[in-house]
């Protein structure tokens, strides 16, 4: 098990602003999430806005610290990391963000951008750094001439390749992909998805892919986790979840990702209502106000996690 999160919680305090420090309420962005990624696997985390998937990614990247719960890497608690462990973590876990325009410093050359994760503490000579940069640029399909150029000379898809090259430069084991193709043109998405897939096979990488695009998530994922309002609603093997979703939200999500033919029949589930206000979450199951199968029990009790079929689990009173 490469990366493991146990009962992860991240709450953000909401202050009135007048009295600094006094919390009026809490935004429970991530509220008790268990995840794991194994070597060479891809965990797809899907959800809409307010689901907590972006905050979860930030927890993995140590851009935020969990309010509760623990994060383990290679079996060791990250909270107990010393400097050497942290260095090793930074080396092993890299990331690619959604926006190829904001990800690259417009005033830095490509070679400096790609070489950035190679910290001085890693003790590489200048020649070794240059060699490695050349290597990763080839891996992502960019020419060697790119090193001396600036980001504005590249298109969106090419910039995303540069971002991927930077993520590969430290020989990572896990790459967190936060909506890696959402900001790209449709015809370029296939290029980048294929690239990511090829790199995974070639280098034995593990991915955590955060996405709201179910189709792209399916393409890369082996395991799938569906999030809603800060909680996990369903987890399982990717194909299983896509063909036989257990949770009503997963079903609605899949039906909303429209089929690619005008005559394709699909049970159209259109949800009423909106994603809940994080400060005023519904009682019981958070999904019950929008759930087509809501029962009286759902407004009172939060459903517990249950493995319904082998390798597929959900938290829903329909299955509990």
């Amino acid at each position, binding site marked *: 098990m490469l990366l493991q999160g146990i009962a992860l919680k991240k709450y953000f305090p909401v202050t009135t602003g007048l009295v600094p420090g006094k919390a009026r309420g809490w935004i429970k962005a991530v509220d008790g999430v268990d995840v794991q990624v194994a070597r060479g696997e891809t965990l797809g985390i899907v959800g809409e806005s307010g689901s907590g998937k972006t905050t979860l990614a930030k927890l993995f990247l140590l851009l935020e610290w969990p309010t509760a719960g623990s994060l383990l890497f290679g079996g060791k608690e990250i909270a107990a990391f010393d400097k050497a462990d942290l260095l090793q973590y930074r080396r092993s876990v890299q990331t690619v963000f959604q926006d190829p325009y904001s990800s690259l410093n417009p005033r830095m050359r490509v070679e400096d951008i790609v070489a950035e994760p190679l910290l001085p503490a890693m003790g590489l000579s200048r020649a070794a750094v240059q060699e490695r940069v050349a290597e990763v640029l080839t891996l992502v399909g960019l020419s060697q001439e790119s090193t001396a150029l600036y980001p504005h000379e590249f298109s969106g*898809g090419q910039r995303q390749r540069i971002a991927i090259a930077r993520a590969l430069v430290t020989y990572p084991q896990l790459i967190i992909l936060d909506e890696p193709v959402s900001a790209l*043109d449709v015809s370029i998405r296939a290029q980048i998805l294929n690239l990511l*897939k090829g790199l995974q096979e070639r280098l034995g990488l593990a991915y955590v892919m955060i996405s709201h695009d*179910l189709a792209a998530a399916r393409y890369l994922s082996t395991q799938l986790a569906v999030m809603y309002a800060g909680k996990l609603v369903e987890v399982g093997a990717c194909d299983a979840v896509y063909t036989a979703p257990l949770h009503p939200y997963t079903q609605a*999500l899949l039906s909303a990702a*429209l089929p690619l*033919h005008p005559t394709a029949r699909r049970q159209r589930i259109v949800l009423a209502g909106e994603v809940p206000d994080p400060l005023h979450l519904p009682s019981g199951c958070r999904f019950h106000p929008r759930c087509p199968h809501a029962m009286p029990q759902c407004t009172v009790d939060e459903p517990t996690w249950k493995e319904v079929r082998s390798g597929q689990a959900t938290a829903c009173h329909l299955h509990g």
Partner: protein
Amino acid sequence: MPASFPLLAVEDLQTYFYTRRGVVKAVDGVSFTLEAGQTLALVGESGSGKSVTCLSLVRLVPEPAGRIVGGRVLLQGEDLLRKSPAEMRRVRGKHIAMVLQDPMTSLNPALTIGVQVTEVVRLHQGLRRTALRDRVIEALHRLRIPGAEARLHTYPHQLSGGMRQRVSSAIAMSCTPRLLIADEPTTALDVTIQAQYLELLREVQAHTGVAIILVTHDFGIVAANADRVAVMYAGKIVETGSTLHIFDTPSHPYTQALLRCLPGVELQRQSLVEIGGQPPDLAHLPSGCPFAPRCPQRQPICTETYPPPVLVEPGHVAHCWTATAVSV
């Protein structure tokens, strides 16, 4: 008005931008028609010219850099490009309305919802007081905005993205325009909200008979919502046809490639077919067909002359040297 007139007929529209790097031919000879009550999907990627086409229809192309340099836009037989600015102002909102992609910036954050909807209705319909208020509430109800009376006093920031988009659409539909241009209206929305919104739009169309131009890059939306499709590339329309035609017999290599490179939710995980290369630089377009450099079916003639339209089937046209008519 003779029934044989299509509601909208665009003929050879050309909109150019004059920039430091050269003349950008954003829209280069675009022609299409739209009947009342129909939905036309304008599909393309960034740089295809779909958004500029929409702006050109309502003559809101940013000046001085951009100019409509040629063509005709016939709304119920009248050429919009020949109208005076004052006349155009009467057309916008009343006959043609627009809904844009970003619901955050479509609404004025400093004014309440009520004020914004009222403003449009008062301008075009000249109603007052109770009649005005009733009309405004009716406009909100049509887009199924719950608690419309109470909402009149709320500000945009108090609403969610989906609700804001509905308010923008309510403003657009408040004067029952004949044509609604929706430029990527769901791109910024969550997937489940997207489904809600599109269903609502279908309902409004059924109720009012408005024609819709739906600009999108998402073929899933096209499949579920459009009657006809026009595919754009580098400022030109490369293929037009009914939705069924486009999905069953795509005849332009770009359309075919687009359909093949989309990961579908049902698809098994085989490799996606890529489109190699990069989108073209609109300031320096190659001669002949702009898609030729990336086209897997490129012929020598493709880089010399722009292909003429080929009638693949009735109502289905593709601009490609390799396209052939489907035998009946």
